[in-house]
């Protein structure tokens, strides 16, 4: 199990991470979600011992990652966004080299190599020079490198960036497979991707962990308070009424044909029944009350932009 407690990191005076705490259990695939600059890469670099934290701690199976011991490095596999590869080497010679560098015996490397090649679908490419591989295959070689030494924790920074749709589907399968018996942390700014591959999502905003939970749990946070309303009435009058209402936190008009008016409304809490009753009392005929189609995307945008309180 990996435990992150009050992780804080400053770049000079700038706080890139502020009191981030979470844990990852055996067999869990965690998605670290956030816009560019949210603190995802900083978190990952601290988790794999590449960078020290200004404050807080990270422990893997009880051992402090900050100590960066050799034993700890053998238990962590890291793939940065741009896979660092020795491009002049062939796939198999590179993986052999990395296996040995991670402390594996020659015999263990030879046993592990076919397993990793199969896991990352690199069959037939073993003897190809990495420089001649496509971006998608290089990503796979990067993942193969990260798991070559069979680590307990695998950290993948933006593993699907730059991949085509077919490669993305294959990468999802690989990530799900990696999660079997290991802890996997995947960073991304792509919400649908994270929901498809991860068991749990952590949302970072401005270096702070603003939300954590499953897709359903995150959806519930906003779903109860956000509705799309379509009423019979003047659009201008409807908007004016919403703006004047003390329990309406935010309102976005939606274009509809006359004589109807529509808007996406964020309420302060789940007060839908009382709110609809007030709307009827105000003379607006209720035509439709629905949950937004792009609800999850909205949640992500809301959380990452700070439109929704943590």
């Amino acid at each position, binding site marked *: 199990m990996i435990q992150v407690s009050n992780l804080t990191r400053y770049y000079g005076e700038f706080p890139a991470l502020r009191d981030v705490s979470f844990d990852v259990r055996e067999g869990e695939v965690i998605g670290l979600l956030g816009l560019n600059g949210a603190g995802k890469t900083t978190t990952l670099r601290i988790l794999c011992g*590449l960078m020290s934290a200004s404050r807080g701690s990270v422990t893997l199976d009880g051992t402090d990652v900050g100590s960066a011991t050799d034993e700890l490095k053998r238990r962590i596999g890291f793939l940065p966004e741009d896979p660092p590869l*020795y*491009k002049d080497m062939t796939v198999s010679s590179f993986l052999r080299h*990395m296996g040995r*560098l991670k402390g594996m015996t020659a015999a263990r490397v030879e046993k592990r190599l076919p397993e990793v090649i199969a896991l990352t679908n690199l069959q037939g490419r073993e003897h190809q020079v990495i420089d001649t591989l496509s971006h998608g295959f290089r990503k796979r070689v990067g993942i193969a490198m990260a798991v070559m030494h069979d680590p307990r924790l695998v950290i993948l920074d933006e593993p699907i960036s730059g991949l085509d749709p077919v490669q993305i589907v294959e990468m999802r399968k690989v990530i799900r497979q990696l999660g079997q018996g290991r802890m996997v942390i995947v960073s991304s700014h792509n919400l649908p991707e994270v929901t498809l591959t991860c068991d749990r999502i952590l949302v970072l905003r401005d270096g702070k962990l603003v939300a954590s939970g499953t897709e359903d749990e995150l959806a519930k946070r906003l779903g109860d308070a956000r509705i799309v309303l379509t009423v019979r009435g003047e659009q201008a009058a409807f908007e004016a009424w919403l703006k004047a209402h003390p329990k309406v936190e935010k309102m976005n008009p939606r274009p509809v044909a006359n004589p109807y008016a529509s808007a996406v409304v964020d309420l302060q809490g789940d007060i839908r029944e009382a709110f609809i009753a007030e709307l009827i009392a105000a003379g607006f005929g209720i035509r439709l009350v629905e949950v937004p189609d792009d609800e999850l995307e909205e949640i992500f945008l809301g959380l990452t932009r700070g439109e929704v309180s943590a």
Partner: protein
Amino acid sequence: MNVWLIAKRDFGAALHGLWGYALVASVLFIDGLLFNIFAMERTAKFSHEVLEDFFYYTSGPTIIAAVLFTIRSFAEERQTGTETLLVTSPVSETEIVLGKYAAVMGVLSVLTLLTAYMPAMIFVNGKVSPGHIAIGYLGLLGVASASAAIGLFGSSLVKSQVAAAILSGVMVVTLLICWFLAELTDPPFTDVIAGLALHNQHFQAFSEGRLVSSNLVFYATVTYAFLMLTTRILRGRRWQ
């Protein structure tokens, strides 16, 4: 083991593609040219003087080769991000530096060995002792080792290979012209600065076939000092 793994990898990378072979070929070409123009000049010379000139003129291209082969060591790894592979592996900074140093010294040893046909010609056609040849080559490897250590240090400081080359070049040239700088100062600085001269003060005896232990110690000290500084740089960067 880790030192060997890194050295093996870097040795292969140094000779991968056109760059490594072009550099080796260029240095050998210049060595041959200098040997023909200066060492084998038409004025009458003893064989040992020809050999002495050979070592003297070969040392220059060897120093340049040492710097050029090392600039990629760390700068390129940082530029391409492959430094992460080493830092996240259970390998100490000392092992990384020693591995890279061993790789460069391997390449430089091969390069130096390829010049052996010139002393061999003097040996066959003239009268020189094998000891003179061996000591001369020891000196060449000594100056190459010190220059490589300086090059590794320069390469560890910056991301750009060009900047690394300039930085290492400036450091090596400064140590080369120490004998000249010493003349501009007053005692006791004169002796101290002159003693730091990388070539003039310490290589002469090797080229003459004289094994002076203080010269060996000097090259070993410069090598050790710069390799240690490089290790410190790597360690410090991690905790920045």
